[in-house]
């Protein structure tokens, strides 16, 4: 159904392009496929699958084991800022410092998570990311028809605001879903937002992003026509 390509660009402080990597994405993840399958069902017969969020914490489809998501909804959801106004999560392409042994079975970018969020604990900060722009300025809000089919392109820019060089070796397109950790008749509580990876890729060779350098990462997913 789906093919995806990724592109990585690194620019120095003067905006000069220093690295470009482009390739076919290798891996829709097993976590995504399980959520996709469960989304075909209704609330009475949805199967129970074990899913892992980006940091490896478990949740479940169906309504039997907690935390659970029931029938997964909005499995392509990336509207983190509007969902949790206080969230530090930034959609949608997150970066890790290590390659993944098997990206299809990875839960997110591998190694240390270095680009995901607002916050001084992370070396990368989002750049040209606008909370007020339609679709945050990271993608077109509607599909475009290309030679390869209907295309969705999501592009994130991350600026190394730390004082050290950062190695990027894996990337992931991250979505999110709400899980319920406890429920009584008619009421739910303990809602947890679970970011999970739709696609994970190891870069063919790690790239180094020096302080003040900008890394631009994009995924394009094609639906054949």
């Amino acid at each position, binding site marked *: *159904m789906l093919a995806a390509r990724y592109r990585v660009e690194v620019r120095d402080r003067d905006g000069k392009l220093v690295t470009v990597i482009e390739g076919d994405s290798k891996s829709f993840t097993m976590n995504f496929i399980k959520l996709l399958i469960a989304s075909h069902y*209704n609330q009475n017969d949805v199967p129970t699958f074990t899913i892992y969020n980006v940091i490896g914490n478990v949740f479940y489809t169906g309504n039997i084991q907690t935390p659970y998501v029931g029938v997964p*909804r909005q499995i392509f959801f990336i509207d983190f800022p509007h969902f949790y106004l206080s969230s530090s999560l930034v959609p949608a392409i997150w970066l890790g410092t290590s390659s993944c042994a098997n990206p299809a079975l990875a839960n997110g970018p591998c190694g240390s998570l270095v680009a995901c969020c607002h916050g001084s604990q992370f070396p990368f900060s989002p750049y040209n990311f606008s909370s007020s722009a339609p679709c945050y300025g990271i993608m077109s809000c509607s599909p475009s028809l290309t030679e390869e089919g209907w295309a969705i392109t999501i592009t994130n820019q991350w600026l190394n605001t730390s004082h050290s060089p950062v190695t990027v070796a894996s990337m992931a397109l991250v979505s999110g879903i709400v899980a319920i950790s406890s429920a009584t008749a008619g009421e739910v509580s303990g809602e947890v937002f679970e970011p999970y990876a739709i696609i994970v890729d190891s870069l063919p060779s790690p790239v180094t992003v020096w302080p003040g350098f900008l890394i631009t990462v994009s995924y394009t997913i094609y639906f054949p026509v």
Partner: protein
Amino acid sequence: MPKSKVGVTLRIEVRDDKGRVVKVIETPSRSFTQNFATLLFASMWTEDSISDWNITYTVYDVMGSPIYIAGGGFLYDVLFLFYSEPQYIAPPYQSYIIYMPGIWPGAAFCPDPKYAYGPCSPISTSVLSPTLFSFPSSPVYTASGWQMAYSQTWTNVTSTPVIVSSVALVFGVTGDPIAPGYLSLNFGTLGPGYYILYAAIVDNITPAVVIDSGYSVTFTYTLLYAV
């Protein structure tokens, strides 16, 4: 940029009234619909964002009726777009020519399948009688990628041959405020609601296949997700 290496395959298998295979066609599918792509985009956002950004997504159901996704639209957002079961289908579709998710046959070719709303000239279930729609129940990992197979069999229950010229993979889609029971951030578990039927993929069958009286045809879509 190299061509996509993965995609969708449509297999058509015709059997006679004794169950013997008389024809097999296997061909790459050509057309995810614009409706599917639009619904996928809409499903990425909250209803608040769609409203704040003043966006209206317009898609068309299998009957060709427009569905507006916007603040104050028929749907405020898109929550589920791969629903494949016969329950909870919205009333107008329960009395339509075909009334549940599946792989629907059509009597006519579609001028441009990617913009079609379903198979062209859908064939009534009183002419081709369907089995239940079969859809994926567990992940299948192959050398080519994650494989998702959908199939449905239709039997000609009339006394005359039937020509099938197009097919469509039809799913249910829903969102606020008509979604069935789901886990809502604010409202807990809601009661039963409804799904709208739309075509995610439409293909012409060239040449058209003839299903003789008593014969059956099985359509199988195999979707591959790159690995």
